[in-house]
């Protein structure tokens, strides 16, 4: 089983080398860039609010990077198989779900690099920057949130692209139906707010995207 995992990992590494490297560089750079402002102590009392604003604006890049990484890694995992119409994978001498598990695991191993990138990047940024009094840095919390976001994104896109066109079709159909019902409801001016409900279900509470919606603040009070 270990040899199989190494083989799958190698093949997946070869397909997603570029994504992993770029992702890691980006993940390493964002925290450093977000704390750039911290160094300028001459701003005095104005430094704190400006720093918080900068960290906030840079912070929005983390969920985007996480989603992009999840999507691209899932595509990289399945594109070659799709091209060969899965014949090669289906003729391998192991249970099908085991092969999918190997692919799934390999993806996570490769995604460890960008997550480490965020962790190291933010720790370095915090060491290098002089924070104004009262502000605290949370590199580990940020890295953990990024890790969760990446894994959820990867899992979602992995499931969609692993499924046959039929499952992808079903998902798209559901979304289309939602939009249709919402449009019809708004025309007949029923106060049916599907998107609001969907949003609360997904984002707030223990929805899948809850981890994306929180505060991506490297530095906070």
């Amino acid at each position, binding site marked *: 089983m270990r*040899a*199989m995992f*190494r*083989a*799958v990992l*190698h*093949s997946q590494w*070869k*397909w997603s080398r570029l994504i992993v490297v770029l992702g890691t560089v980006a993940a390493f750079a964002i925290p450093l860039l977000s704390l750039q402002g911290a160094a300028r102590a001459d701003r005095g009392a104005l430094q704190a609010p400006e720093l918080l604003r900068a960290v906030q604006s840079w912070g929005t890049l983390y969920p985007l990077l996480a989603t992009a990484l999840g999507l691209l890694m899932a595509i990289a995992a399945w594109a*070659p198989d799709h*091209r*060969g*119409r899965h*014949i*090669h994978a*289906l*003729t*391998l*001498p*192991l*249970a099908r779900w085991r092969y999918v598990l190997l692919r799934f695991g390999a993806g996570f191993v490769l995604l460890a690099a960008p997550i480490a990138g965020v962790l190291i990047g933010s720790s370095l940024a915090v060491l290098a920057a002089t924070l104004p009094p009262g502000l605290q840095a949370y590199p580990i919390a940020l890295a953990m949130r990024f890790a969760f976001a990446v894994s959820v994104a990867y899992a979602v896109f992995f499931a969609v692209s692993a499924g046959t066109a039929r499952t992808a079709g079903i998902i798209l159909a559901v979304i289309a139906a939602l939009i249709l019902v919402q449009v019809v409801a708004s025309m007949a001016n029923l106060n049916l707010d599907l998107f609001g409900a969907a949003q609360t279900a997904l984002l707030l509470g223990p929805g899948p995207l809850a981890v994306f919606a929180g505060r991506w603040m490297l530095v906070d009070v």
Partner: protein
Amino acid sequence: MNDAIHIERLHYRAGKNFAIKELDLHVPTGAIYGFLGPNGSGKTTTIRLILGLLRPLSGRITVLGLPMPEQHARILGQIGYVPEQPHLDTTLTVRELIDFQAAFYPRWDRARAAELIKRFELDGEHLFGRLSKGQKAKLMILLALSQCGDLLVLDEPTDGLDPVVRRDILSALITYVSERGATIFISSHLVHELERVCDWIAVMDDGRLITEAPMEKLKHGTKRLVVMGAPAEIVNPPFRVLTRESANGGGAGENWVVGDWEPGMTSYFEGVGASVREVIDLDLEEGFVELLRSFREGRSRR
């Protein structure tokens, strides 16, 4: 029942227009089993059913004694498969593909893989996508053979390749078979190649198995007869009348093509007041063509 592949009453339908109905197929262990049939007759589909890539509507498939698709993982471990279209990833190099495949097959034979790489003059660092058609075929054969399977399932492995490549592949196959006594299930359009190698032949058309017989029986059992003065209706002959047409150039002579022919059957004609002027041997290709024609006419008449 020590058939390598045993299929009983197999039903499979793909979309509206194509279906495999009532397929019964037996590949004896150790045989080199040729699978002939025109394009679109369901050969590749049958192979995919045998490998568990597709799920039949009904019927039982037993491969190497294990039920398919329940035990598909164990069976596939003992099978070497070469598909019609290259199914390997184009962005991996030859060496990576070999290492990848080796990781999945516990009985992987590194020595054979290394020896075949030299014999096939394959460059380990070449990307699979950039190999020529022949080299791709050789690599797939290399992988299939190095898996040390007891059964090789080859879907037109040498079609469209130049003679040199075909010669290399066939000799590698034959060496493998003689070393490991493996069974080969080979589907191909190159009838001469099958004629040379196979000891069993099956012919399939439009999802149905026309005939399945040892090479000798099929080849020597199909003859073309020049018959003089044969009555219109013949009553249950000991052989199978495949086609019957008046000889070109007029005259009372008729060209018959018959199956399951035994040398002593000319006496039957004297019995019905006809005479056999000549018995012409057919090679596998002519026999195959005649078989197909008669099957299709038989089907269209019905």
